[in-house]
């Protein structure tokens, strides 16, 4: 592990660290063990069930079936739609939250009257439970008869939109973006506040206007914060479920079924434990592929 050069440059330092690590390892063991059990046991069980024929409604017919569940899943005509919907949902919400979040962060960095209150209000949506906010959007805002949007459209003489029937994925993306916008704004705002005022001053002295200030000073500075937002949001957005469950139930047809909802359909509407586990394994694989690409991309931007 240790190269000769490093031993030379700091004689004795590395072995000391080593010894300390050996001593404390026993103390760390319980938590590491717990973490392993926590993550490995469910994974192994999912893998195991994905090779089993196991439907809750016919418990008598359990048994090993090899890769039957995977064949069944991969030939599901709804699978491609579900994966596409997942990517579409994640992508659109990321774009919206980061674009709007950056603008809001710049805005909230300015001094204005009532900024403290405005900041609290801005963060509020993040603390509303997904099911609750989905219900509010569904029944109070987007409802085609009683909703606020329908009222506004009608009052200017336009046709009302039946959001969850005509634009289900867009409607869900709007709800989710509304929930995640505060998070993006918050992270980006703290990043902007960490910007060295002297740099801003120097730029201003060089004659930079607000737009070139934003493009050449603030945006490059935000690069790292934006990567963090992308990574954290991605983790949560890949598993959007509550909003879909409450509003469209994945419909109409398969129009708003994403991968988590497809797995839910296998598990709790078809009661097919084997098929649902195979879906879970597929989701893990896909999430890891996305994660690998992202990590590479991020490590490059952070180093740069």
């Amino acid at each position, binding site marked *: 592990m240790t190269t000769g050069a490093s031993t030379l440059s700091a004689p004795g330092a590395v072995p000391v660290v080593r010894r300390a690590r050996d001593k404390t390892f026993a103390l760390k063991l319980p938590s590491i063990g717990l973490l392993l059990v926590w993550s490995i046991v469910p994974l192994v069980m999912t893998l195991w069930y994905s090779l089993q024929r196991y*439907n*809750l*409604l*016919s*418990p008598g*017919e359990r048994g090993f079936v090899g890769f039957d569940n995977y064949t*069944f899943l991969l*030939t*599901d*005509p709804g699978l491609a739609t579900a994966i596409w919907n997942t990517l579409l949902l994640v992508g659109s919400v990321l774009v919206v939250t980061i674009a709007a979040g950056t603008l809001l962060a710049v805005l909230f960095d300015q001094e204005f009257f009532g900024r403290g209150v405005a900041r609290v209000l801005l963060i509020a949506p993040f603390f509303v439970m997904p099911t609750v906010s989905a219900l509010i959007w569904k029944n109070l805002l987007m*409802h*085609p*008869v009683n909703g606020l949007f329908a009222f506004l459209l009608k009052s200017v003489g336009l046709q*009302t939109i*039946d959001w*969850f*029937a*005509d634009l289900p994925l867009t409607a869900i993306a709007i709800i989710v973006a509304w929930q995640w916008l505060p998070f993006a704004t918050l992270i980006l705002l703290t990043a902007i506040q960490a910007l060295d005022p002297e740099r801003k001053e120097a730029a201003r002295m060089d004659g930079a206007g607000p737009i070139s200030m934003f493009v050449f000073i603030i945006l490059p500075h935000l690069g790292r914060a934006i990567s963090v937002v992308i990574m954290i949001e991605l983790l949560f957005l890949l598993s959007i479920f509550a909003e879909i469950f409450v509003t469209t*139930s*994945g*419909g*109409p*047809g*398969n*129009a708003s079924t994403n991968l988590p909802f497809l797995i839910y*359909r296998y598990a*709790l*509407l*078809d*009661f*097919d434990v084997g098929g649902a586990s195979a879906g879970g394994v597929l989701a893990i694989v896909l999430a890891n592929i996305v994660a690998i690409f992202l990590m590479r991309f991020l490590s490059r931007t952070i180093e740069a």
Partner: protein
Amino acid sequence: MHTLKWLLAAFASVVASAAFAQTQLNIATVNNSDMIIMQRLSKEFEAAHPDIKLNWVVLEENVLRERVTTDIATKGGSFDVLTIGTYEAPIWGKKDWLVPFDDLPASYDVDGLIKPIRDGLSANGKLYALPFYGESSFTFYRKDLFDQVGAQPPKTYAELDQVLPKLKAAAKGVYPLCLRGKPGWGENMAYFDTLVNTMGGRWFDEKWEPQLTTPAWKKALTWYVDNMKKYGPPGASSNGHNENRALFATGKCALWIDATSAAGYISNPKDSQVADKVAYAVAPTGTVPNGAQWLWSWALGIPASTKHVQEAKAFVEWATSKDYIQLVAKSDGWTVVPPGTRTWTYEQPEYLQAAPFAKLTLQAIQQADPIHSSALPIPYTGVQFVGIPEFQAIGTYVGQQVAAALVGKESVAKALELSQAFTKRTMQRAGYYKK
């Protein structure tokens, strides 16, 4: 000091209640109006049985199904009393997942249960759930609007086609046709299955081959989509039974084909603005009379995993007894008593007088025939469902496709093709074609 006193008091009360040994019964039920009344009146049961405490879990129909099925299939034991229907009771009874009701007291008068309902809840000659209410389907229509356009309630879908444009022209702010659109095998599919049946269709042929792309299905779905678009309310794809009931009760619908059990609510002036304007008629028929009206009962069953069989039985027998019906009559009026379970109810002069829909309900239930629900030969029983475990998955999926066709996300042909493919796959996976 104060804290200490509080703690002591709390401790004492815990000890006292433990000494009392109260049994807690967890009851899962659906959020229909009759169950809401039951929940309210159950105080009387608790008063009569101080050793039993009832915990209610009231859920929307689709969620209830999911929770209850998962619980019973995994022997989770979260519930002591389940609200299930004529679909679940025989299937689960055959698997011994439910406690049979074979020691009912004579006072319960089990032979007084209406026969098709009792048969629907039995398997192998044993009764596995007691009916809380029973229903078929029929037509609700606004007498005032029909008089205004000079029309009779439609006996057939051809007659319905004639009357809808007249209603649309005559009635401002009233949608001529309300039907279920919310996806779910117990929601939009319940109505849609009756439409398929009476248009001469069936789910499966004798070899369990799905028949969803046959002309009868195309005809039914085309009629449904076209007429709901032209004459239905906006957002119809999210209207289930309860949403349509609210629309009709607030005077927004001229004609509605749905569960007979909603008639009590619609005829009750306390809940409904159209109580004096509504009238009832037999559900319209298409090319064949078979299966135009469904048969359903929401019933109370006891999972075999419960530890409190005796207490659960006491509650279920109370909630489905004649005494309970009389209790509802006394507190809420005869109009809203749980219908369709006992012939005795239909012999009460007060009920016949208070409920203009009573005779028609009884007639519809007695005429519904789950064995011959299609004009063609079928290997299954059930009017608005197929009595096999796989049907929940199939019905849910097909319900989604029907809703997609309704909102125009998919064409009729495409929706039926996808449904056919899903049904075939599911049946194949379940091993129906092994031989």
